[in-house]
């Protein structure tokens, strides 16, 4: 028995030395050290021996088992280390192969810009109010201080419908009247809203002009709203939209529903104001028409213009998007060419 023990030990040790793979190692372990492994059987067989041999044999068998287990551990670690080294050294892939494509959706560029507007204006307490696309002439014009045939109507070429007095809104400003009447509490409550929406103008469709475009109108009505607040508020918007260093320019202008009226320019963020094709070499980009709400409009909204005042502004998200992304043609927006949409 003793000699068999030594033979098996020698054989197991020799086999272990020649093992190079994890699989062979596992097989070796099962063969010698597993539940029914040869060595384990031998250790168990100690009970079958004559009493006087048991102590020596048991001692030796246990020693051999422990030695083999230790050798197995060493061998196992060395094989793992070899495998790891082999993988690290030889397991390279072509990292330039393309990745597995993911299905990626996305939003229209106008939506991106509109959301930026919502976010910035919400921080300043302006909430979104939306109203209808198909409007009546009174709300779109007359109540905004543009009576029928008034020359100010020349500024907004209009789509009329076959229903008398029903038009496509030429701007989101009719929403001012609707909002003042809805939220103003008969001229007793302050208002701070933005009015995004699609507007329509009867114009030729070209690379620069569209018949349909988003407008975002803003309206603040209160008892102490001043033109300086209008300037400060728009400047704040511009800083967040175009960067903290955005420089502003204010030009006198005319809108029938505001007085005083002004156009707001921001220093061209593409050329830094040195002059480029986009800003037509003026260094300025027009970003908003604005002004103090005209007394007639306040009155039509239910407010006493001697007590209440307000400011309003209108901006074009498509135009800003166009500038930010160097989009060469405004017709891209509703053309919905996927080659365009997928760039956002």
């Amino acid at each position, binding site marked *: 028995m003793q000699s068999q023990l030594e033979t098996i030990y020698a054989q197991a040790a020799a086999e272990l030395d020649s093992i190079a793979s994890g699989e062979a190692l596992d097989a070796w372990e099962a063969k010698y050290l597993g539940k029914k492994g040869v060595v384990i059987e031998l250790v168990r067989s100690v009970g079958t021996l004559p009493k006087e041999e048991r102590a020596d044999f048991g001692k030796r068998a246990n020693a051999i088992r422990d030695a083999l287990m230790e050798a197995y551990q060493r061998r196992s670690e060395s094989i793992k280390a070899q495998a790891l080294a082999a993988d690290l050294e030889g397991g390279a892939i072509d990292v330039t*192969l*393309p990745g*597995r*494509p993911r*299905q990626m*959706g*996305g*939003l*229209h560029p*106008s*939506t991106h810009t509109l959301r930026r507007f*919502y976010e910035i204006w919400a921080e300043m*307490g302006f909430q979104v109010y939306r109203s*209808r*696309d*198909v409007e009546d002439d009174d709300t779109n014009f007359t109540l905004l201080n543009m009576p029928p*045939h008034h*020359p*100010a109507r*020349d500024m907004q070429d209009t*789509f009329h419908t*076959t229903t*008398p007095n029903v038009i*496509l809104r030429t701007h989101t400003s009719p929403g001012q009247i609707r909002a003042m009447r809805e939220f103003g509490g008969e001229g007793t409550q*302050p*208002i701070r809203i933005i009015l995004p929406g*699609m507007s329509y103008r*009867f*114009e030729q*469709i070209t690379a620069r002009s569209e*018949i*349909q475009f988003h407008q975002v109108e803003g309206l*603040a009505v209160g008892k102490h709203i*001043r*033109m*300086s*607040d209008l*300037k*400060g*508020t728009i400047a*704040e918007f511009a800083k967040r939209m175009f960067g903290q260093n955005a420089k502003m320019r204010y*030009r*006198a*202008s*005319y809108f029938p529903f505001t*007085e*005083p*009226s002004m156009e707001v320019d921001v220093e061209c963020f593409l050329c830094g104001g040195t002059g480029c094709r986009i800003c037509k*070499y*003026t260094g300025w980009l027009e970003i908003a028409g604005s002004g103090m709400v005209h*007394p*007639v409009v306040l009155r039509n909204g239910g407010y006493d213009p001697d007590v209440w*005042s307000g400011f309003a502004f209108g901006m074009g998200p498509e135009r800003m998007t166009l500038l930010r992304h160097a989009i060469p043609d405004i017709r891209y927006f*509703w053309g*919905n*060419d*996927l*080659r365009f*949409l*997928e760039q956002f």
Partner: protein
Amino acid sequence: MRVPLSWLKDFVDIDLPAEALAERLTLAGLEVAAIAYIGVPQASVPGLRYPKSDHLVWDRERILLGAIREVKPHPNADRLVLAMVEIGGGVIEQCVTGAPNLFDYQGQALDMPLWTAFAAEGAEVWDGHSDEPQRMILKEKPLRGIPNRSMVCSEKELGISDDHDGVILFHEPILRRDGTPFAPGTPLQDVLGDVVFEIEFTPNLARAISIYGVAREIAFLLDLPLRPPSFDAVMDGAPLGDAVRVEIRDSALNPRFTAALLRDTKVKPSPEWMQRRLRLVGSRPINNIVDVTNYITFEIGQPLHAFDYDKLAARAGGGAPTIITRTPEPGETLETLDHVKRALEPHNILVADTAGALSLGGIIGGAETEIDDGTRNVLLEAASWNYINIRRTMTTQAVRTDAGYRFSRGVHPSQAILGLKRGIELMRQTGGGQIAAGVIDVYPNPQPPIKVDLPAREIERLLGVRMSAAEAAGLLRRAAFAVEIDGETLHVTVPDYRMDIGEDTIGRADLVEEIARAYGYDRIAQTLIADEMPAQRGNPALEQEEMARDVLAALGLREQISYRMTTPAREAQLVPPGLASSLPLNPYVTLANPISSDKTVMRKTLLISLLENARHNARFTNRQQVFEIGAVYLTRPDDPLPDEPRRLGLLMTGRRYPVSWLGVDSAANVDYFDLKGVIEGLLRGLHIRARIVYERSPHTSLHPGRSARLMLDGKPVGDFGELHPLVASAFELTGAPVYVAEIDLDALLGFSPALYPITPLAVTPPILQDIALVVTEETPAAAVEAVLVKAGGDLLKRCTLFDVYRGDPIPAGHKSLAYNLVYQTDARTLTDNEVASVHQRLVKAAERELGAKLRG
């Protein structure tokens, strides 16, 4: 309007560079859209940027005013002459030229020189013979044997206009502002050099649509003295007497009508200085009478109209004519100067006589009484008209004139008499004759000047600028407002021509604007609103809509936004031939003035937008997965304004996966279940807990067998599925099948809860089992699942179909549906017996209710 700097200088002394002036005007609301340079260099003004102009700058040494003393024949050429040009200091240069307008002077003695533009050797000019703008430097080059090193120039060669029919030629000496003539050899820049501003006027600036009007604004903005033109006329002819009578029938439409008579004058070309100025502002010179009416229109903004007096007298049967301004008789017509015979409308206002209509008041003259070369006696009209009515007539009669443009913006009646006197005097000076003593001036209701009381605190209330009454008064006085200060209140009298200033509250706002313009918008501080914050309401409808966008983008779809206009014919393509339409039956919102024949109505469905975009994109890609959220427009019988419900449209077609080298089936196309997966994802993303049922869809635009109607709590919310093949081919989408959905977004979002509770995480182990049931082919999967879920009760946490199998050993007409089942309680670990018993319950229920068999 084109505004030459040289003309402005008649009225105000400007020593600012043109570019700085343009900036100042633009900031004050008179937008200078462009600056055209004639010969003079562009200045560089620190702090200002503007496009670099590529115009020709006339060399001050080499491009000079020349005086042609003699025109000699060319010895070797019939089509060339030799112009002997004096260029100062007694120097005569000989220029060989083919200018046709010099031929007539060949061999004549020139008592008075012909004034021209002379360019010496080395000067840069435009090549007059080139069609494309091309510069050239003058070089010595003999012409048909005669040495030649300089030239007399056409307007084209100097960049004044495209005219190359002859050289620049003036018969009269050109005068300086002080009346002395320019000498030969003066740099041409000083003589003809100019800067012309193109100014765009907003409708409130009616007072400024003239050279003098702009000059007045400049004087106001720069605080400079203003020099008005002369309004004196030498009226020393025989008295006007009863030579003409004027009757105004409606002074609301025609507040004032003035007239003067010039007798024994001669119609001839205008003086060269006037022709030059008219050309600068874009008006073609005709004869002195017509030119003066135009000149006054451009100069002071009061349009005039000249009649041949004798033609009027003839119409009156040889007697004194009576001018009547009135609205038309029914059926009345008028042939205007543009040779259009016009059917008149009730709101038009006419200048007429006893024989009929003469002109469309304030807009355009009639053909019959116009000035011609034989006119000897001129009746000049200067009137004022209701601007709203003029604009309305210009719109309805589709006619646009310089006069009508100004009257439609508003010309105050006070200007009529000024224009009349300046006009008739200029006619006398240019054509001779005597102005009849006295004028006709019918002005039934002169309005008193507008007075506004402005408390100084209004300035601070509206502008946020604290300003004393004295400072505000100073700013207003610059704009010719008369101001008296009474404590902190300004009593302001408005100049008559300021028709943009109202009364009371509106007048105060108008004055505050005027003060702001004079003060400078840039000087107003930037402040943040200190006022109380209004109630914050939020906009749940928008927030939900944006959430839907985010969910759809996360599901891999791309958002599109389309034109909302279409045509009934385009939308009709959505209905397969022979089938009823599933589109809303409401009549369309129809445009009265569509911009093009493919955009005549507002859409009633998003499908049209989706399919037309798909047709476009099919040219570039084999893979489209898009959505659109937007309004459709549904007319209502009881409201002139339509309903504008929000819709969600989805479209998927073509390849399911992007092309890849990684062994996915990149040739597989999307099918019904891809679209349904998106809809299920959307319902999950919106946390909709309603009872969701998919029925067969009756929508005729969809394939009847491969489309469904989404029902939430029994309410239809939308239809989706494969596009009907006939509709697909109508849109030329004949490749891969197209899957579309149109969903009532308002209805859908109505099921999306503002708050939704989550399920607590179970701590007990789940027990997983599979079940496969064989059912008849007709049994819908949803019915099987419903039975399992009901039988499983609280213990069955999840039931997921993972396989549908047909074929051996499943009998024909049957299918096997296999489900993963998850059993779990929240309280304790389930025993094997409990699971076995509930599983058995499932099997029994399926057998009983569906005739299903457990697959072995």
